[in-house]
């Protein structure tokens, strides 16, 4: 919780200082755009946080977004499939991909890094092969479906909330319930911290891990569909490139530990928000774009370093408190 507060502080700092320098940052138009991007990237970040909580990693997210995004456009426009069949197919493919990752990692005991790295290459290749490496798009068709990504719901007379935000909220709520209120959430955290002890406690760790990879891939698939609907023009070789790293960075910034066993949905969303606000601020403040990676890298690093220092401070305080005698446990019994 403290971690989430810390990252929220960082978010506020970036947000307020940008708004002060250029008031147009808080214009309705910009805020709506910002919320849409946060929502799209937030969905995939929540996905990867499930895998990170188990102590794993998924590097294939970006390519999977490329594959599912291209597939959505290709099936709808080139093959003429119906909307429902297309979406179901794409989501089924995503789940299958996640299951394959999970099975390879748990049953064959391959390293998640290696499995999903191969996925990164494989899905990109498949996307390009299926589409013959041609750019995909909806043109002026599928206007209704595209509302899922670009539509918005008016709140009052001036402000509208982009529809992806509602999708993100729905997903976040379910994810948060699973992590905090169900036995499966408890199992995920337990196995992320100590897989052997969890296994020895009767938890089916393999099934839980497979479920985590399936969740991650499913959310990447949903992200792929939304990105393709939003962008309209999709290059199979480029869509989603590097998004796995954005998602992982947002999750880590939001309090997930790559060692596993740590993370909150709210933190991850705020982590994503920090990243998107930074990108937005760089444009709004007319900071040269070639500096953006440097700025974002520096901010994430600063966030992580601050967090680590705060943690050490807290640990030291705790040690002092306990050893001063508040806690009788530290004496030998």
């Amino acid at each position, binding site marked *: 919780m403290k971690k989430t507060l810390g990252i929220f502080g960082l978010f506020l700092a970036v947000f307020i200082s940008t708004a002060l320098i250029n008031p147009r940052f808080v214009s309705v138009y910009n805020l709506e755009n910002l919320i849409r991007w946060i929502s799209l990237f937030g969905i995939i970040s929540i996905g990867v946080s499930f895998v990170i909580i188990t102590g794993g990693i998924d590097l294939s997210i970006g390519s999977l977004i490329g594959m599912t995004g291209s597939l959505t456009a290709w099936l709808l426009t080139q093959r003429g499939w119906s909307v429902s069949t297309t979406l179901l197919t794409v989501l089924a493919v995503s789940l299958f991909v996640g299951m394959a990752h999970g099975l390879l990692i748990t049953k064959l005991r391959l390293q998640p890094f290696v499995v999903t790295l191969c996925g990164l290459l494989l899905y990109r290749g498949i996307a390009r092969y299926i589409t013959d490496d041609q750019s995909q798009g909806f043109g002026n068709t599928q206007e209704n479906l595209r509302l899922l990504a670009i539509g918005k719901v008016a709140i009052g007379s001036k402000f509208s909330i982009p529809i992806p935000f509602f999708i993100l909220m729905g997903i976040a709520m379910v994810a948060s319930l699973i992590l905090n*209120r*169900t*036995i*499966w959430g*408890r*199992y995920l*955290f*337990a196995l992320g*911290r*100590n897989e*052997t*002890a*969890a*296994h*020895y*406690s*009767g*938890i*089916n760790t393999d099934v839980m891990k497979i479920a985590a990879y399936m969740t991650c891939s499913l959310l990447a698939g949903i992200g792929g569909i939304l990105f393709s609907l939003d962008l309209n023009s999709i290059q199979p070789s480029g869509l989603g490139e590097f998004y796995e790293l954005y998602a992982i960075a947002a999750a880590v910034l939001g309090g997930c530990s790559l060692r596993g*066993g740590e993370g909150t949905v709210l933190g991850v969303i705020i982590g994503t928000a920090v990243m998107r606000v930074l990108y937005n601020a760089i444009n709004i403040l007319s900071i040269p774009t070639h500096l953006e990676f440097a700025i974002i890298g520096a901010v994430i690093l600063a966030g992580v370093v601050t967090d680590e220092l705060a943690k050490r401070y807290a640990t*030291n305080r*705790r*040690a*002092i*408190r*306990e*050893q*001063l005698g508040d*806690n*009788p*446990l*530290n*004496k*030998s*019994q």
Partner: protein
Amino acid sequence: MVATTHMAEELLDVRSVSKRFPGVLALNGVSLTLSQGEVLAVIGENGAGKSTLMKILAGVETPDQGEIRIDGQSVKIESTGKAQKLGIALIHQELNLADNLDIASNIFLGREPQRFGFVDRPRLYADAQIYMTDVGLTCKSTTLVSDLSQGCRQLVEIARALSTQARILIMDEPTSSLSQGETEQLYKVVNQLRQRGVAIVYISHRLPEVQRLADRVAVLRDGSNAGFLTKGQITVDAMVSLMVGRTLGRHVRTSYSHGEPLLELRHLRTPSFPKHEVSIHLCKGEIVGIAGLVGAGRTELLQVLFGITPALGGEVRLAGEALHLSSPRDAIKAGLALVPEDRKLQGVILEMSVGHNATLASLQRNSVGGFLNAEREKKQAETITQQIRVKTPNLDQWVQFLSGGNQQKVVLSKWLSLKPRILLLDEPTRGIDVGAKQEVYTLMEEIASQGIGILFVSSEMEEVLRMSDRTVVMHQGRIAGELTRDQLSEEAVMHLATGAGDSPPISVLQE
């Protein structure tokens, strides 16, 4: 008994050294002396200050107060490099060897003999061989460390220490991971070093070992000197009473009654000893100890019973019913529970609260449709941790911050709320304090009195003698013999455990 006269010929003279860490006085005016060719055992409970003292001697920490003299000269050991220069070498509990290098490279790591700026390889290997002979290592100096047994690695560490011309060797729990044979070899080396005039500070929890090796014993308690024992005075009882500050009454399990047979292992074969069949039975409310040397296949047997590794053959019956054990889940469902050997790795989740650890195995019953009933879970955690007498400020405390004994009680809590029929314990008191051991023993008795059958593996003779209603001794994957309460003695166990009684086996339970 505190030594007050410091004579000039003492090799090492530690004078009322104190060390304060934020909020805690780790060492409070500790003094000790060490002369050439002497083995001084330093013992004490966990947290008594042994490791702080050793770190100060090795230059890892510096004392706040007090003086350290070597050969009568006052010295400041402000770094590990300085310690090495002064002839002090620390042999860590966790060995610090580079697995991927050979023995010689490890011995001279960072101090390789050079020639024109290159490593002088012929000399490296020749020199290494000399030190290896000193410690009784017979293999070649070109052998990779990764190919060595745990015991041989220990010897490499010692050889490395000797190669720095160390005069004072600090050995921290050197036998904790050694087999019986390796331990004997280590004793031999210690004796040789002693004869050559090397002074040894020997830290150990294993009191019989201390009794056998030490010339003198320094006991620490709560960061202070609790007393010294000289050669004739060193007995296990004397050491224990100094360590805990009181004489422990020998606890021997007195009242026990055998119920009907509950668990039966019939011709069970484990992957580590595929050729040997194991047959054991366990009655309701009975405590059966499995004794044997490290590597006799005892842990492997428990792991097969708990579904962690699959059995190669044979069967396990619980109350007459054959069990299918392919995962811990199966075992738990059948009513088995395992308190594993490595508590921190297999037993508890350190970075999780006491409450969550205690309910981890029984979450399913506190949930409806997957959703947790937080209140019921909390109540269950409270009840069971009180019953097991886990000492924690609250249930939200991370298990990490509990003492070893309390961590072990958390593991017991986890299982007992499931009301198991069989409790398997693997080294139940490893690495926990004397006082806490006592509590674990009491708990084991209470659990058995509820009709739960207990099967425990222990390498501590004391423990086996105290707790077992019946003792099964294993040797190289087989049941070497079984001893009833009347037949049970240290000699009888050792006889079987070392394979001395191989033929004919004494009262092996055969169907």
